[in-house]
């Protein structure tokens, strides 16, 4: 079943579940117009752990919103949400994402190949539904910084398989150099310049050390919805029509990222309301 009518939505709404959001500021030096992940931020949902080898996290993974998959073929949706972003200079957007796959433990002083093998082509943990469009256009890829790496901006070559299955394609980008590219929580988009879409990231390779090993990884997410208070130290409430009533597929690993307009990622308070029908 799915919600296919306004009546269906009205009937489902009172039966929903609210999940609390309280997340500590992930990076007080976060820069504007950059994304930061709250995966390892303390609070509710509880802090996630920086991964090591590539895995497909789910709603049962520590750090995810702990919703229960519906029974009897019912579907889950985000019906409303409110978010408050605390921080005098923070005006930000908070996004709810499905964390499709991740790995960590990469070293920013290691020159040469480091294995990644993050693969979202499989069907484990309901990934076939969670990743969305068959051309992988719903999947966004990021470098995620778990522990601050070096301050020197260096070229990183990302080797990937595209959405058509062609392996060993490469994309180069820089990591290190500013809080948005070396600070804890930073998400650095991996966007192939040739318009390719990525299904697997096989390895990464640094040309020169950034100066500090840190801990970084590769994360694939699907963006579900966004909320944006009009200013720092204030809140907003988004109903289903603003959120787009996004579908949350079974086993989805729901997490939060911010996209700031100010300085500092901010402390997050709020709720998301999931309905199932």
């Amino acid at each position, binding site marked *: 079943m799915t919600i296919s009518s306004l009546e269906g939505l009205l009937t489902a709404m009172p039966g929903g*579940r609210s999940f*609390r959001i*309280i997340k500590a500021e992930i990076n007080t030096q976060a820069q504007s117009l950059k994304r930061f992940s709250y995966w390892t931020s303390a609070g509710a949902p509880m802090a996630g752990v920086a991964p090591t080898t590539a895995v497909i996290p789910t709603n049962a993974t520590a750090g995810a919103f702990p919703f229960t998959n519906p029974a009897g073929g019912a579907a889950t949706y985000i019906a409303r949400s*409110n978010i408050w972003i605390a921080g005098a200079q923070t005006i930000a957007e908070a996004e709810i994402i499905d964390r499709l796959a991740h790995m960590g433990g990469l070293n920013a002083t290691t020159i040469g190949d480091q294995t990644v093998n993050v693969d979202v082509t499989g069907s484990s943990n309901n990934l076939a539904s969670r990743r969305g469009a068959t051309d992988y256009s719903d999947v966004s890829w990021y470098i995620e910084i778990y522990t601050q790496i070096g301050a020197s901006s260096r070229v990183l070559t990302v080797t990937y398989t595209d959405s058509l299955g062609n392996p060993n394609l490469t994309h180069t980008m820089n990591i290190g150099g500013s809080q948005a590219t070396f600070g804890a929580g930073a998400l650095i988009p991996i966007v192939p310049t040739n318009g390719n879409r990525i299904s697997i990231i096989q390895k990464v390779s640094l040309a020169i050390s950034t100066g500090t090993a840190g801990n970084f990884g590769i994360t694939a997410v699907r963006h579900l919805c966004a909320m944006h208070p009009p200013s720092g130290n204030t809140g907003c409430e988004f109903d*289903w029509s603003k959120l787009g009533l996004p579908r949350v597929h079974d086993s989805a690993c729901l997490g939060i990222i911010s996209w700031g307009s100010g300085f500092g990622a901010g402390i997050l308070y709020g*709720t998301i309301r999931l309905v199932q029908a």
Partner: protein
Amino acid sequence: MTITVAQLQRALSKAYFLPFGHNPDFNGTTNRFSSGWIYSTLVTTQGVAPTTAAIPTDATTGAMGPLPVPTTGKTLHVGAVHCGFTSNDVGSVAMHDRLGHMGGLNGTTVGDQTVNLDISVATSNLANRRGASDYSDVQWWVEMYTNGVGATPQVLTVTYTSGAGTPGQTTTVTIGGTGFRTQSRMIQIIPANGDTISIVEKVALAGSTGTAGNFGITATRFICYLTQQQSAIGNYLFTRTMMHWSSTGLERIHDSACLMQVHQPSNNSSSSTGIKGVLHLIEL
């Protein structure tokens, strides 16, 4: 039961208006949560600081109510909410069902103080009011009843029984000091390791905050949320904000629910700041 658009339309047109209001405000401090429980003097009656653990209801002094009794076969839901703030206060108001509370804890007592606030019971329709069977709908707070505990921040260890029924679990929260001591302040208790909480057994301060004050433990269930983005222009009647059914989610109000407000201001509000609004309750 299917809810049709026509049913919703009829229900909204016959909404029961439940007013609420507080003046002065709840000692608002930027980004901090404040309780409306004992600052209920404008419309809602003023609540009383509890002593031993109790399950408040809509008949408890301080609750928004009494609640209307729905027609047989119908249930009560939030159709809309609107309110306004006075002065330069901008922020949010969340409606909660106050599931359980206790007070009389001392900010200078080092070591164990008994709480025994248990919301696993069925008293006063709590089995329905608390929501999900794993207690994930329940939020737990330290609530300040006097102004306040001391100026020295101290770690408070909270010993609880998890939602799975495992007793003796612990988590910590800091109370006392700037922003965490004034009357009406609510400080969220986040259980360890993603737990939920069914019973808070006791609390223990690591050291004295410097002043006894009076604080307690409160359990609530979040109902709905309202934000106000613009400061008042001379009178709060001109700066109201309204959230309609899609924003309130048609949240169910269970029988005996003890409705209260939790405020989160965008700026430090003065003692003259107030809040006044109306909850629109509908039958579906």
